[in-house]
């Protein structure tokens, strides 16, 4: 697979480490009354998507950017690559 890094251009997937669902960006509020339940859901419950999936990749053999990829799990087509810090910054 080839990942089009927003800063470095096309890079081989072998340079990256995969983590998982990009929902890991949305760490729950630890002060909320429902924090225990929220963290359980955040950490352990995942959608098993057939189709477009947003997921986290880490450019370990490169510039050490965390990226958010939008990848179709049926075709491996990657339609969008963003810097995770930009995505996380927008959310907050």
């Amino acid at each position, binding site marked *: 697979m*080839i990942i089009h890094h927003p800063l470095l251009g096309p890079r081989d997937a072998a340079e990256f480490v995969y*983590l998982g669902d990009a929902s890991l*960006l949305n760490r729950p509020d*630890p002060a909320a009354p429902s924090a225990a339940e929220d963290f359980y859901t955040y950490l352990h419950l995942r959608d098993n998507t057939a189709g477009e999936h947003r997921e986290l990749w880490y450019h370990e053999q490169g510039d050490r950017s965390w990226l958010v990829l939008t990848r179709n799990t049926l075709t*491996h087509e990657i339609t969008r690559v963003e810097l995770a810090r930009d995505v996380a*910054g927008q959310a907050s």
Partner: protein
Amino acid sequence: MSGYRVNQGLLADSPAVPFVFNNRPFSGVQGDTLASALLANGQTLVGRSFKYHRPRGIFSAGPEEPNALVELRTGAFKEPNTRATVVELFNGLTAKSQNHRGPLSFDVMAINDRLSPILSAGFYYKTFMWPKAFWEKLYEPVIRAAAGLGSLSGEEDPDSYDKGFLHTDLLIIGAGAAGLSAALTAGRAGQRIIIADEDFLPGGRLNLESFLVDDMPAAQWAAHSIAELRTMPHVRFLPRTTVYGAYDHGVYGALERCTDHLASSDGKPRQILWRIYTQQTLLCAGATERSIAFGDNDRPGIMLAGAVRAYLNRYGVAPGKQVAVFTNNDDGWRTAADLINAGVTVTAVIDTRSGEAPLPIANARICMGSEVIATQGRLGIHSVTLRNGQTIHCDCLAVSGGWSPNVHLTCHQRGRPVWRDDIAAFVPGQTIPTGMRVVGAANGSLSLTQALHEGHDAALQALQASGLTASANTAPKATAESTDLSAFWHVAGCRGRSWVDQQNDVTTKDIALSYQEGFRSVEHLKRYTTLGMATDQGKTSNVLGLAVLAKLSGKSIEQTGTTIFRPPYTPVPIAAFAGRARGKHFRPVRHTPSYQWANQNGADFVEVGMWMRAQWYTQQGESHWRQSVDREVRQTRESVGICDVTTLGKIDIQGADASEFLDKVYANTFSTLAVGKVRYGLMLREDGFVMDDGTTARFSDTHFVMTTTTANAVSVFRHLEFCRQCLWPELDVHLISATEQWAQYAVAGPNARRLLETVVDAPFDISNEGFAFMACAELSVCNGTPARLFRISFSGELAYEIAVPARYGHALMDALMQAGQPYNVMPYGTEALGVMRIEKGHAAGNELNGQTTAANLGLGRMVSAKKDCIGNVLSKRPAMNPDNPIELVGFVPLDANASLNAGAHFIRPNGEPNLASDEGWMTSVAWSPSLNGSIGLGFIQNGSQRLGETVIAADLLRSKHTEVKIVSPHFVDPDGERLRG
């Protein structure tokens, strides 16, 4: 003994090449394959079949060969299961036939053929069920010896293999008519191209036919085209290269055979595994001919009709003196015509279709609307019987059942081929790899004219996609040909067995049996009968098998479907995938800056992560590692020792929000840490379990240096970057891994300060008052070398860690040893380090195993209640805070002479060692020179409240039960007076 050389073809004036087959000398010519040379020498019989040991001959002229598998070369260079049809002949080549006992012509295992009624599909599954124990000991070895392919040398492969990466704008797979036509159009327009062909003589079908292209013989046109392409600097030609797999996003795998055609590799890589990155791809892989199922259709001398034509036109070899042709299409007739033109006798052309003969074949019996129902001959065919009872003599039967496009690479990314009735074949479906176009015969366009035109047109499209303009040219012109065909698969009512897959000895009856027993989907059929497995992957047999299955089920082939094609297209040696990553190169190792110093001073190394760390340093007179380790521990505790701790992860953390960041990633608080101080830090995973530990030093308000365990250096850094970029991007903090930038040494023991006083540059005050326990500083040593000093202790002694830029590591080790001479300083290794940390009760990897909590480690109070951190919320889960938690404590055996085993589980005295009575386990053990006995650390329920109690350490794996007493985990200096002194 029927094939012979005719004086024509591309090799008419080639020099002779001697070779050896089954210990007999033969002679071929330059440009032969092993198969063509054997046929030219009249060697019709070349092997025995997989299961029944039936005599078998050469069936094809390409990579699809199911029968002619041979062992090549000798000794460690031996290579089994090589297809003789693609082996390029060289001077001195040595080959042997496979899978027979005794001579090839009299294989004693041929008895299996007589037993065929009980050896049908699924036979193994049904017969060898009982008794169960017999399978591994008796049945399987006997079956494996009787049925099989070639044998391995059992020696290490002496050849070398390489890997490489190529980048291009257009990859053309196959240099036949379509591929060359495309390459000329795109190449002349200046496009960057890689064109790969699996053959050693590129040209594909152009080398096999008697056609004209642009008014010259097809093979000559191919040679001219290749010569022109070779002059283009932007075109890379890769002959002897099979593109075996299509992967995501325009990545292709290819195997180049660099020295297989030479007598010796002569130090060069034998094969290169290429990873090709391309924008666009043209698949010009051609088509593969298939057979027809009829009685005893596997005798040596029965070949594909296209292969007969290939041997004649390319190699100048007539596979028989009297050839008969059996066909369901026009293409088979061309074989007959070419044979007649070369002066070879054609005894008959048998066509399953009625009507007029498509071509005139002089002096041959023409049998329209007829079928071959049986063949005769023992080690080779000598006649065939037709439906009407006629017998026709022949020593070679050329069979054509039509052509199957080579769609394999279109399917490597879930693509499913679709059925085309007009050519009775599967062609590429709608879903093919992005950027790929399929051209020519691979796309079902079977005539030469179509291939040349489609190649040209596809190149124009590729140029347009790349923004290039074609120079004015048109597609090459070729002789017209007809490709009419009727879908005919299986001659009904034959008495002899009708073979579908010759490599796996699968007959039409086996398919019927599979169907009858309920294995009716194509994927089940494949697994039950082994149809389409092994080296040829059913290239000549798959569609035929599907047709037979479709007929049984009353469905169409389209409804029946086909099994999916996966990489590789043809076999790729494991050695090529390994490349240079063999032996010690499989996994590179890392050396610390003082590795050479340690090596010269008797170190014995152990791999930790990828680092080579000294385990102990053997001195003269020491014959057992325990002697060295005990000495190193005693020496350190009595005077001073030095340990290389460079391998611990070091992470430089800077920024205005660095302390806030550390509060979030560590369970305990760092914002309160004073500049010039170090603090032990405990890191949790988000699920609340302990992830890692280490010390973090503060050099300024905005600058921290964190250490991690050696094993977790990479994963902790990754985790911190996740926290920084994904969770708290608003924080002003930056991370740099500095593990390799600093060489670091622990100097431990009562004389540690006295030693360091002599290397620390004035006016730095290293006294206990000036540089107290848990202090850190940036300073210089040895007259101006920049350094960092930390007063931290893993051993429990008065201890420091001193770090210098990596290039000074070796020199610092020399300087420290020199300075320590008055104190009899010694280096110590990871074993002594481990013994001392167990004596001190410090947790390490054995205790931080991903299943333990801060509370388990006795560090529960470190998880700050005043702030959030990674893992804080979930560490409070009830399940992680039970009433009877396991706790880290120490253990000593009641019998002072007994030793302890890590991994033993604790049970109460007189308890049964089972899961219900399990109270915990021993994590680390050592023989303690300080206590003169065995000690251990371990987790046991409510351990801190059970000091003094006796339990059993039960080790069921090593059958050893030991009575142990629960004690404090701090065996040495429990109050920490030494490290503060």
